[in-house]
């Protein structure tokens, strides 16, 4: 190979990212979501206005990796905590980063009340359909048929009930200004998810209302799957229950 001029077109780390080391599993979808979130903040020029509020889950480790202010809070409560933060600093760009267990299970009241209140914050829900951090049990967002450690034969609608489509519920509330659902199972969907994040953060920081982005992420560990099968499983099951796209975009 001869020496040719070359230009870096993509860095491993996002701006605002302090390190690339983390303890998440091989093939986990969360770290990609972290990266596009930090890119979105940086591209919007919000780095010195951003305050993140994170729940309890595998994704929590973003606190260690990102060079912005963070408040790690109780499981499910992030939207309420973020409300307190935002009302004290109305000019800050306040967002929550949470998992599906955090939002759809423990914190369903919090996210819906905050959305109805039109709180000017963004909630980002990383939906992998399991409590990843506790080892892969059924959440309120697990899809029908999904095997988890507490639904070993697959989630059965008759006994376990149906998944809670948080994004659809948030979109039904008058206080929400923007709702979208993306995923991180291939480069194209990653790029789209990043656009959703940018619009959501921009709108809430501009005072339009509550904005919500759900991102479907792979959890090969909780799905009991080889890492390479994660993206395909996500598409074949999660995207059927949770269709991708913008659910709501507009002033309230």
């Amino acid at each position, binding site marked *: 190979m001869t020496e040719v001029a070359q230009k870096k077109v993509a860095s491993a780390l996002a701006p605002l990212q302090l390190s690339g080391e983390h303890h998440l599993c091989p093939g986990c979808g969360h770290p*990609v979501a972290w990266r596009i979130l930090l890119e979105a903040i940086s591209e919007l020029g919000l780095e010195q206005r951003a305050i993140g509020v994170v729940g309890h889950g595998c994704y929590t480790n973003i606190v260690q990796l990102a060079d912005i202010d963070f408040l790690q809070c109780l499981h499910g409560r992030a939207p309420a905590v973020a409300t307190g933060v935002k009302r004290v600093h109305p000019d800050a760009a306040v967002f929550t980063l949470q998992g599906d267990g955090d939002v759809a299970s423990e914190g369903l009241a919090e996210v819906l009340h905050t959305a109805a209140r039109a709180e000017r914050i963004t909630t980002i829900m990383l939906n992998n359909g399991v409590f990843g951090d506790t080892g892969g049990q059924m959440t309120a967002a697990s899809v029908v048929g999904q095997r988890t450690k507490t639904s070993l034969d697959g989630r059965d609608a008759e006994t376990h009930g149906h998944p809670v489509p948080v994004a659809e519920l948030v979109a039904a509330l008058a206080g929400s200004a923007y709702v979208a659902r993306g995923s991180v199972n291939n480069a194209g969907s990653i790029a789209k998810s990043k656009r959703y994040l940018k619009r959501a953060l921009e709108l809430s920081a501009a005072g339009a209302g509550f904005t919500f982005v759900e991102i479907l992420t792979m959890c090969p560990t909780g799905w009991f799957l080889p890492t390479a099968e994660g993206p395909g499983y996500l598409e074949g099951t999660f995207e059927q229950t949770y269709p991708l796209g913008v659910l709501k975009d507009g002033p309230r």
Partner: protein
Amino acid sequence: MTLTRGTVEIDTERCKGCELCIAACRPGVLVMSEETNHQGYRFPLLEPGCTACRACRDVCPDYCFEVFRFDQAMEV
């Protein structure tokens, strides 16, 4: 002979062997190693034909890729 428009630097020690980059690479120029890194994982190796499309970098959960575009494409 393959047309190569760019290249990637891979942090193979940070790699956790998930193989997401392998599937993401349209031209299929990434292949998994036989050896393992210090963590015990196999990792991707680059073969000629990279288009600098960044897909590997975009999907990698362990931030292993830096992507470079060549000023001019090369035949390797």
